[in-house]
């Protein structure tokens, strides 16, 4: 199987129904994308597939052949992603940090689709869980990234 991830093509030899998350982490060593629940509940595994925020723990690799995958490892090569990261740093968003790759990816997808999101847009897009309760800082950072 051939997957396009962060602009590079990778030959992958796994069962077709393997979740993308585990191909990223174990086959390709891209561990920035996190495993939290495995059942599309937490969002720690969020990546962009054709620009859409997608939970990679329930996305089988055979379903995304021919699509483009962007992970947190390439976030700073993306202009929106860069703004998001800077806003995350400026707002000192992360605590334990474990959910934050997914949060940054979700925010990047939002700003790509809706450059000037309303508070409702932000609430609708930023639904990933954070056990450390960084939710207020996340919203503030998304607003700042939208202004940047």
């Amino acid at each position, binding site marked *: 199987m051939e997957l396009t991830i962060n602009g590079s093509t990778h030959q992958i030899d796994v069962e077709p129904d393997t979740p993308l998350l585990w191909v990223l982490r174990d086959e390709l060593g891209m*561990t920035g994308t996190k495993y939290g629940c495995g059942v599309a509940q937490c969002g720690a595994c969020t990546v962009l597939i054709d620009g859409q925020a997608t939970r990679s723990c329930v996305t089988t690799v055979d379903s995304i052949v021919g699509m483009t995958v962007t992970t947190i490892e390439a976030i700073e090569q993306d202009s929106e992603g860069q703004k998001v990261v800077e806003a995350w*740093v400026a707002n000192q968003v992360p605590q334990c940090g*474990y959910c934050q790759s997914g949060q940054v990816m979700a925010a990047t997808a939002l700003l790509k689709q809706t450059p000037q999101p309303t508070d409702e847009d932000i609430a609708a897009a930023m639904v990933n*869980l954070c056990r450390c*309760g960084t939710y*207020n800082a996340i919203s503030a950072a998304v607003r700042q990234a939208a202004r940047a």
Partner: protein
Amino acid sequence: MNDMTPIRSGRPAQGEDGPLNVSRRGFLGGAAALVLSVTLPVGRARAQTAGAVTPGTRIDAFLEIRPDSTVLFRSAFMEGGQGVFTAMAQIVGEELDVDPANFVVESAPPGPDYLLLGGGRFTGGSMSVRSSYETMRRLGASARQMLLQAASEQLSAPAAELSTEPGRVTHAASGRHLAYGELAQAAAGLPVPENVTLRSNDTFRWIGKPVPRLDVRDKSTGRAQYAIDLRVDGMLHAAVQHSPRLGGEPEALANEAEVQAMPGVHSIHTLPGAVAVVADSWWRARRAVETLQVTWTDPAPDTPRAMPADFSSETRRETLKSTEGDGIAFEQEGDVAEAFAGAARVVEATYDAPYLVHGQLEPPSAIARWNDDGTLELWIPNQAPEMFQADAAKLAGIEPEKVIIHSPMLGGFFGRHFLYQTANPYPQAIQLSRAVGRPVKLIWSREEEFLRDAVRPLGVARLRAGLDAEGLPVALEAVAIGEGPSGRWFGRAADQADSSAVEGMAGKVYAIANRRVAQLPVDDPAIIGFWRSVGHSMNDFFYETFFDEVADAGQQDPYELRHRLLAESPRHRALLETVAELSGGWKRGPFTAGDGTTRARGVAMASPFGSEVATIAEVSLQDGEVAVHDVWVAIDPGSIVNPAVIEAQVNSAVALGLSSALLEEVVYVDGIPQARNFDGYPILRPDQMPRVHVRIVESGAPMGGIGEPGVPGVPPAVVNAASVLTGQRIRSLPLAKIELKGAEG
């Protein structure tokens, strides 16, 4: 199937010989970019026995100044989001005169130098900064003095003419400078000064300031590495399936051949209370182990901590509620019996709070590698490396010195990473690695984690208050029924109450002349653990919510009654006034908010972990559920190191406290926890997060904790507010299980 035999001393299995691609930074030698050319001070003897070391004094155990004048600092305390690495850099940097931004901080390995908590080492109890503050300042100041001394020799100038500015020594008279990196080697040979002068507080540049956290960029770009992300050369991956009921053992595997033939499967193993599959990737291991059809035995009669087949959280709650007795007194003041006898009115209530999982977002993992030299190397999330080292050594049958512990950044803390038997994956990883003769990385799926986490105990409290003719409380008795985690893991004398069972009902500051707080111990069949703010996580809810009942019974406003009973406690009264002012002045409600909703406010106070906290919450009812709009927190930790970290920690504590009040509950049926993932155990979502307003008060009292104190006030403040709208007292958590009726909208 490889039947596992207990690991004994003797030759370890052959480990994979390749280099780690986990970076062995700094002192372990290896990755070139961070290798130190100079250690400060190299002259100090390293080969000392534990008894000969005064923890926190050997500079080279903590600090390495690199040629570029940046500092590698080994922290005795683990970072799990609470900001302790940054705090250490601020404290040491302040005295050493190095900008905290030029620090690289990592977890220290096990060792006598790091036993900073009364001869032990443990990250928890919100103790890290307050317990080591003086010691770490001295460490930084000593190193600075040695650098000055070295500079004096190199510049041939008297030390008195020298000063430092961040990262360098300056000789003003000659206009010469020497960077710390140039001096480190010479300084290393000098003796550690006996006495050092610490900076006066009014000259602090970094302590007390909102210094940016050191790990934020790495955590915003996916570069931060947690235990679950690490990889060592030649490793295999493992996944487990546990006995649903603790204590059961694998009896038979119905489809072993089928599973052995699955892609990537290396081997199938039985372990104590579990089966495991080792494979070439974790996903394959997991899929295979979950395909295994296992018959589990009933626990053998003498199995320690086996879960009874008829155990349920519901029966546990009823058992505790119906257990009679006054318990073992922990705190007594005045004459409670007489005060109740003379009271004009007595108010009584029984409260309860459920079992909780930690729910840290990083599932547990462990990497184990047996090395050719007989050492065992472990990469494990933990909050007490020496304790894990000793336990791993016992399991492996080798000396503790032969167990090398790496303590990566923690993807959530909350008390999860203590040495709970049956709740940690490393014993399994050690066995599996031994069995397959290769390094093994074991991850527990979220489902296995929710099955085996050490839960916050279920708690019940009986409270009773006596009121005088004016409606003021003159007597209060609180009996905590159940077991606390401190007693479980550190032991409890038969005639003594466990502080972790009563804290939050004991230690309250209100002037109620006759008081008695006790524990009525009833052993908990579940594996119980420390959960952020421990006993306070439920006891302040019990006490502060009951307090509002008492106020209502005496026809007092709950804020005014608190204020009145704090007349002799200026620190607490000021804090209560501060939170009221922060919220725009106390009002209980119900009142109509700007958006037309009907709202009410509740207040609570707590004295956890050496800090004082006052909390106000504003809520409304929406479709039978409590919506929390704003939480105001005034916190007095005495003195502070980083206000930005405190504000973040209070936000985090509000989220966790609210999550527990609204949503969380582990339900056991037939000895098995029912929820195995976040779908069955919801935690606070972003749309449920209130605005959080924080005011930090520095009263100058001894420094208190920060990580936990924000939690306990939240559930009672929220429930007190909700009760105003429902007109009913709420005595059981979480609120989600109660149908709330009242002033909606």
